[in-house]
C-alpha cells in the first residue's frame, strides 16, 4: 500500500536520535574511510600495472651472453647496428656497462678504488641492448629479431621485457583482488553494523512502533522512520569517513611518491579515481538505508 508518510519534521521525533553522540555515524565513518583507502589502493595498483604494461609493451631485451669481452662487445655493436636498421624497431641502444655494474652492485659488491678490472671482467656479465618496437611485442616479432641476429651475434638471447615482470603483474593482480575483497567485506560489515543498530533501535522503540502500528501506521511508514534516521547517520558518517580516508590516501600517496621509484610513479590517482572514491559514501548511505529498511520490514512482518 502506498500510503503517505508522516510529516518530515515530525517523523524523526518518533525515535529519539543520538546522532553524533551515538556510535552509528562513527562506525560508518571508520568503515567508509577504510573502504576509501582500500579502493584507492586497488585503483593505484591498477594504474601502476597499466602504466608498466604500456611502458613495457613494446620493449625487448637482447642479451649478448658471451664470456669473451671482446667478442661480446663486437657482437653487441653489430646487434645494435642491425636492430637500428631493422623495420619495426623504433630504437635500440646498448645499456652502458657502468649502469649494468650499478645494477648488479648489490649482489656482487663495489669495485675497489684502483681496481682496474671491472666486476664484469671477473664475472662475465652479458651485454644488454634495450630495444623499442613500434608496436606490441609478439612471438613472431621476437622470432624475426632472433633470426636477424643469428648470423652476426650468435650469442644473442632475445626476451620480451614484459615477461620479466610477469610475476610482478601477477602480484599486483592478487593485491587488486585483495583490495576488492576488502571492499566487499567492509560493505558487508557496514551492512551488518547497520543491521545490529536497526535491530537495537527496534528493540528499544518497540512500544512506540506497536502504538504507531495499532494506530494504522503501515510497515512502510515505520520503516521510513528508521530508514531516514539511519540515512542521516550514514550521511554524517560518510562525510567524516570520506574526509578521514582522503587524508590517509594523500598521506600514503606522498610517502610512496617520496620513494622516487619509476614504477610506483605510475600508480597515481586520476580524477576518475577520485570521483569513484567520492562515490563511496553515497554507496554507503544507500547500503545503510536499504539494510535498515529490510531489517525493520522483516521485524515488522512478525507483528500482526
Amino acid at each position, binding site marked *: 500500500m502506498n500510503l503517505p508518510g508522516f510529516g518530515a519534521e515530525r517523523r524523526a521525533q518518533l525515535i529519539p536520535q543520538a546522532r553524533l553522540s551515538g556510535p552509528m555515524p562513527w562506525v560508518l565513518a571508520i568503515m567508509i574511510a577504510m573502504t576509501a583507502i582500500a579502493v584507492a589502493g586497488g585503483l593505484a595498483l591498477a594504474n601502476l600495472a597499466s602504466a608498466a604494461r604500456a611502458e613495457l609493451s613494446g620493449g625487448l631485451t637482447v642479451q649478448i651472453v658471451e664470456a669473451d669481452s671482446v667478442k661480446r662487445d663486437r657482437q653487441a655493436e653489430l646487434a645494435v647496428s642491425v636492430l637500428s636498421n631493422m623495420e619495426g624497431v623504433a630504437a635500440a641502444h646498448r645499456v652502458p656497462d657502468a649502469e649494468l655494474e650499478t645494477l648488479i652492485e648489490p649482489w656482487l659488491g663495489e669495485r675497489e678504488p684502483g681496481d682496474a678490472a671491472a666486476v664484469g671482467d671477473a664475472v662475465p656479465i652479458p651485454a644488454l641492448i634495450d630495444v623499442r618496437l613500434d608496436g606490441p611485442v609478439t612471438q613472431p616479432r621476437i622470432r624475426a629479431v632472433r633470426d636477424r641476429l643469428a648470423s652476426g651475434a650468435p650469442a644473442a638471447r632475445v626476451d620480451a621485457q614484459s615477461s620479466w615482470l610477469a610475476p610482478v603483474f601477477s602480484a599486483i593482480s592478487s593485491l587488486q583482488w585483495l583490495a576488492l575483497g576488502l571492499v566487499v567485506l567492509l560493505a558487508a560489515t557496514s551492512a551488518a553494523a547497520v543491521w545490529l543498530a536497526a535491530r537495537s533501535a527496534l528493540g528499544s522503540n518497540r512500544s512506540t512502533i506497536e502504538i504507531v502500528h495499532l494506530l494504522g*501506521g503501515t510497515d512502510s511508514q515505520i520503516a521510513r522512520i528508521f530508514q531516514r534516521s539511519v540515512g542521516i547517520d550514514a550521511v554524517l558518517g560518510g562525510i567524516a569517513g570520506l574526509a578521514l580516508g582522503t587524508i590517509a590516501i594523500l598521506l600514503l600517496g606522498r610517502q610512496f611518491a617520496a620513494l622516487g621509484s619509476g614504477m610506483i610513479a605510475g600508480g597515481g590517482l586520476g580524477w576518475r579515481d577520485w570521483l569513484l572514491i567520492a562515490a563511496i559514501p553515497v554507496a554507503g548511505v544507500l547500503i545503510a538505508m536499504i539494510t535498515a529498511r529490510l531489517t525493520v520490514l522483516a521485524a515488522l512482518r512478525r507483528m500482526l
Partner: protein
Amino acid sequence: MNAGGGEIVQFDNVGLRYGAGKEVLSDISFTLYPGSFYFLTGASGAGKTSLLKLLYLAQRPSRGMIRMFGTDVITLPRAGLPAFRRRLGVVFQDFRLVPHLSAFDNVALPLRVSGLRESEIEGPVADMLDWVGLTDRADARPATLSGGEQQRVAIARAVIARPDMLVADEPTGNVDPEMAVKLLRLFEALNRLGTTVVVATHDLHLLKKVPESLIMRLDKGRLSDPTGALRYPPRPPAARQTEGGA
C-alpha cells in the same frame, strides 16, 4: 450468518488462546451495529481486554470468524489491516502514549499517520486538548503528566480522527468522577455523530450514565447478553433498560 450488510463488527464462534494455554475466550458470537453504544462488563480476568484486542486488530483469534466493516479480517493479508485500524479509535488500559512525544504530538499521531498536513492538524488537536482540559499541558511529555492527564491524552488521541468505532478499555479508571462524566459525554457526542462505541468497564455506575447503551457481559471468557445487545435485531432501548437494568 449475516452477510455483512449493516453491521460494523460480527464475531462468529470466536475462540482465543495464548500459546498452548487454555482458551481465554470461548464461543464468542455477537454483532455490533453502526452508531450503537456498548458497555462490555465483567470481573477482572473475565477476558474483556482480550476481546478488545480482537476488536482493535491487535490479535487474531484461535478460531472462529470476525468481520469488520463487511470484510473478513481473519483472512485479510496483514498489509490490509492498517486501513481498518485507521477506522478505529482505541483507548488502551495502559494509555500507551509515546514517551518522547508531547501531549500535543501524541494526540496528533493518528492524523499524521493518516498523512494530514500540519496545517490540518494543529486546529483540531488544539480543540481536542481544550475539550479534555489539557491546553496548558500541550507541550508536556507523558512522564510529567498525572495518571488522569495521561488518560485524557489517550482518549483525545483515540477520538481525534473521528473513528467509525471507538474501543476503550477502562477509559475512566484514573480520572475523577466529574471528568469521567465529561469523557462519557464526549463518547456520547461522538456516538451521536455515528461512531460505534465499545467501552470496557467494571464500574457499574458508569453504565447508568448512558441510558441508550447496550451491555455485553463477559464471564470466564464467555459472553452473556443482559440487555439483548447481541440479539438480532436488537431490542428497543426502553425494553433493554427495563430488562437489563445493571
